[in-house]
């Protein structure tokens, strides 16, 4: 059996990835006859015997356990409707908020009002219903700072391996940054302009190699030198 190998190859929908029954189709792949084909535009990755494709573009698809940033758009009798820039709106039930809330005594708008931005965890996804939870320690409501939006497919690059990229940006700019898996980034304090410039570069050149080196160069040189 082969060991974990990373062959970053750009594949397009309908491309044949391998013609062998020894491999299994993973995410964004499908089998037809003996061959495995790609479903999406993305980078092919082989892990052991599983072949998968990491998409390079597309709308955010919610996954249980993801931290997302969203805006409260509506208040219902027992929860909030949150726009997380995904396919469907998410719902934050009262049970997802820390502490006990007596609905007969407190207005829900006192806790989260329409227009508030929250950082929440996706607790459940089934069909078109996405449930959020504020139970996670990282969850909070943003009252200050600014939000920028990047493509959700590029969030893993922005965070980097074990958070290396985001730590690099935090250390060099002094910003407090929260990244939502849905592609919305909150930042406050420090050199915000520089951080936004770096995020834009990451988004533009996400699929290129040696991105971390380039970003650290950006901080050292101070100027944004475009790679070929």
């Amino acid at each position, binding site marked *: 059996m082969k060991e974990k190998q990373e062959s970053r190859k750009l594949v397009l929908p309908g491309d044949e990835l391998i013609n062998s029954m020894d491999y299994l189709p993973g995410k964004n792949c499908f089998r037809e006859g003996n061959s495995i084909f790609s*479903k999406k535009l*993305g980078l092919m990755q082989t892990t052991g015997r599983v072949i998968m494709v990491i998409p390079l573009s597309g709308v955010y698809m919610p996954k249980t356990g993801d931290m997302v940033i969203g805006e409260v758009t509506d208040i219902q009798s027992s929860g909030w409707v949150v726009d997380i820039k995904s*396919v469907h709106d998410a719902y934050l039930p009262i049970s997802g908020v820390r502490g006990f809330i007596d609905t007969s005594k407190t207005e829900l708008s006192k806790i989260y009002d329409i227009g508030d931005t929250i950082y929440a965890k996706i607790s459940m996804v089934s069909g*078109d219903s996405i449930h959020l939870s504020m139970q996670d320690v990282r969850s909070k409501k943003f009252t200050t700072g600014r939000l920028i939006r990047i493509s959700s*497919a590029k969030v893993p690059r922005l965070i980097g391996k074990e958070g290396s990229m985001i730590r690099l940006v935090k250390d060099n700019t002094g910003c407090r940054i929260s990244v939502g898996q849905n592609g919305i980034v909150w930042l406050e304090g420090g050199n915000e302009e520089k951080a936004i410039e770096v995020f834009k570069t990451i988004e533009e050149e996400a699929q290129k190699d040696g991105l971390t080196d380039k970003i650290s160069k950006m901080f050292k040189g101070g100027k944004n030198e475009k790679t070929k």
Partner: protein
Amino acid sequence: MASLTKSLKCSKEAKMKRPNNRKPTEFRPLTVVAGVVPNADGSAMVKLGKTTAIASVYGPRSVYPKWKRKADRAIVNCTYSMVPFSTDERCRPGPSRRSTEISKVIGDALLPSIFVEEYPKTMIDIYIVVIQAHSGTRTVGINAASVALADAGISMRDIVSSVAAGKIDNTYVLDLEGKEEDASKCDIPIAYMPRKKKITLLQMDGDLSAKDVIEIINLARKGCEQIHEKQKEALIKRWGI
């Protein structure tokens, strides 16, 4: 009668001339660019000769009006439109009988290539705008829309390619343009998925013999395969490492 057969013979032997000295099996110069509309989730521009179309894809997103949504799959909405200055004579903006028909036909041609069952209760919107029309707008629209769908990161079986072919004076010709279209007895636009060799759109204007139809479809399929390569190149250019 004798003169008729003579004229037919003549036309058979006479060398056919095409605009820009194109060969009968050659399509017009083709340019495909992916990612031209920043606001869309995916977009593409295709230029085939003078005919130019821009396609943008939005979604998958939630369905409005809500009663239209399907519990087990995504719905694909396709809108084809021509800008008023796209033709020689100003064409009235807004949906027409023709554009409504072409929208439906393009949507149906793209549907088999999309994994709609992966996106339940959603819709995928495809907007095709023809900037310049010089025949073959529906095929160019399909080419652009298909690249835009791939650019939008939607799960697909294959990239759909499309081209028309016809018959002029006993010669089978690929990609009829402008006056050729009027001179031809017939033309057949097809949309084709090269990997599975499946035809997703087949229309026919005029009348032909059964043999001719098969010959023309085979010619168009070969053209589609070449266009498919161009579409792939455009996507690699946009996303390449």
